[in-house]
């Protein structure tokens, strides 16, 4: 499958501080790619380089087959969208007026406003001034704005940071729908739950370097302990080995009605991150 983003030996140095070092990855067309790491690991720096907002020190970063730094022509800008947790909206204007501006900038018919507001469940609020919206609603308007021109590639920098679970769920549903329609998504987050639920592949970024890159289920399997956890009727838990050896005991305990629930001992992406990097995802 065609690669939309290709990054080779990318490095970025600010003064005497290395923000990115020898970063390699590629993102396939139609994929949702997660760039995971704690604050200060280089996630936003990477997005800024890929969207032409920041120059890099060495290496290569290309988007749509062109060097990222050259993506400043209107026809290139129409191919991607960017959402950050502080993507500015005009506070004194209504949601509709904010979106109308971007319809005109992207040469999109105004009818699209109703469609994107429907997607983010804000149709009833379209005349409301942005200043009167909650943080969650503002983030949904930002998403709606990025969806107006149906970009081929969407960069999301911590899209649900500081949002409550209900609002995050809303945003996630919108992103899945967009991805189903063919948009490639590049997502940075330190929320492992978000990464697990949205991403086809994830890269763990720590201190400016990628330490692991694969599909979430492959990573979980790779780091799994191959044991099962049984929750018993008497309230106790026991861990049994996987395979033939454990299967017999699981069967016996189930047959005698002792088992309330069975869990595989697959680690979460957060657990794997801590194991690989020795750092918590905060």
């Amino acid at each position: 499958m065609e690669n939309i983003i290709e990054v080779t030996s990318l490095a970025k140095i600010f003064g005497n501080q290395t923000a990115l070092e020898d970063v390699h990855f590629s993102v396939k067309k139609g994929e949702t790619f997660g760039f995971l790491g704690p604050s200060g690991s280089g996630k936003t720096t990477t997005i800024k380089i890929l969207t032409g907002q920041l120059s890099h020190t060495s290496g290569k970063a290309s988007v749509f087959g062109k060097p990222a730094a050259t993506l400043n022509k209107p026809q290139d800008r129409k191919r991607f969208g960017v959402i950050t947790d502080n993507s500015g909206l005009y506070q004194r204007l209504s949601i509709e007026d904010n979106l109308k501006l971007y319809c005109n900038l992207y040469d999109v018919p105004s009818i699209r406003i109703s469609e994107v507001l429907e997607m983010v469940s804000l149709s009833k609020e379209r005349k409301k001034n942005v200043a009167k919206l909650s943080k969650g609603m503002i983030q949904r308007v930002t998403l709606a704005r990025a969806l107006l021109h149906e970009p081929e590639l969407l960069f999301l920098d911590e899209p649900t940071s500081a949002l409550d679970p209900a609002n995050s769920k809303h945003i996630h549903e919108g992103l899945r729908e967009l991805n189903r329609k063919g948009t490639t998504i590049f997502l940075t987050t330190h929320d492992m739950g978000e990464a697990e639920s949205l991403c086809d592949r994830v890269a763990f970024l720590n201190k400016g370097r990628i330490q692991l890159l694969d599909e979430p289920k492959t990573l979980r399997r790779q780091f799994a302990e191959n044991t099962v956890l049984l929750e018993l009727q008497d309230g106790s838990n026991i861990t049994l080995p996987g395979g033939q050896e454990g299967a017999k005991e699981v069967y016996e305990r189930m047959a005698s009605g002792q088992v309330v629930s069975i869990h595989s001992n697959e680690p979460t992406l957060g657990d794997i991150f801590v194991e690989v990097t020795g750092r918590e995802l905060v």
Partner: protein
Amino acid sequence: MTFSMKRMYAIFQKDVRDLSKNMYITTTMLMPLALAIFYSTMDEVTMDMHYLIINLCFAAVGVFVQSAIIAEEKEKNTLRGLMLSPATLPEILGGKSLVTLVLTMATVLICALLMGYEPANYMIVGGAILISCFFYIALGTLVGLLTKSVVEASVLALPVMFIFSFGSLFLTLIEEYPILSFIEYLPSVQLVELAIEVETGAVFADLWSNFAIILAWIVLASLLTAVVYKKKEMDA
């Protein structure tokens, strides 16, 4: 570089809507109007008084308002959104400057009407005022781009406004302090000189040096603005 009238007009329309709800802008515009009303009650309004008000319009609206609207875009992170959109530098700055141009020229016109200013040659004086306005808007844009917030822009705009708009008040000091002779080349001084010449019957051919100096200031301010904008487009 591509240029789309539709995109520039979209930014202009957005700013018109936004500014109509912005008290800071509307109250700033009232300042030269209030002073024009005050001067209009006087028996005789001299050319210096007319141009004090016209230069105040340039300073308060052209520089101050333009710097505030650009700085606000930066402060609220909306300029980044525009920069990442298909809108190009001339479209963004053109759209934003067009609003200020309309506001400045409207304020100048109302003030001139209030004070009963009737130049001997409307074409020449009107043209000179219009091109001077371009300079002050470019200056306001530059101040807005160099600052991070509306408050910071207001602080930086004050000395800039003072030098460029009221420099003519210090012309009398040049003999005593020759270092101040640069004041003679300020666009505000050139505009007043041009307006006085027009009243004595000067035609365009007599005034080309005034126009050339004002145009040189426009070119310089526009180049600086473009360089700073390009620098701000990239973070580091």
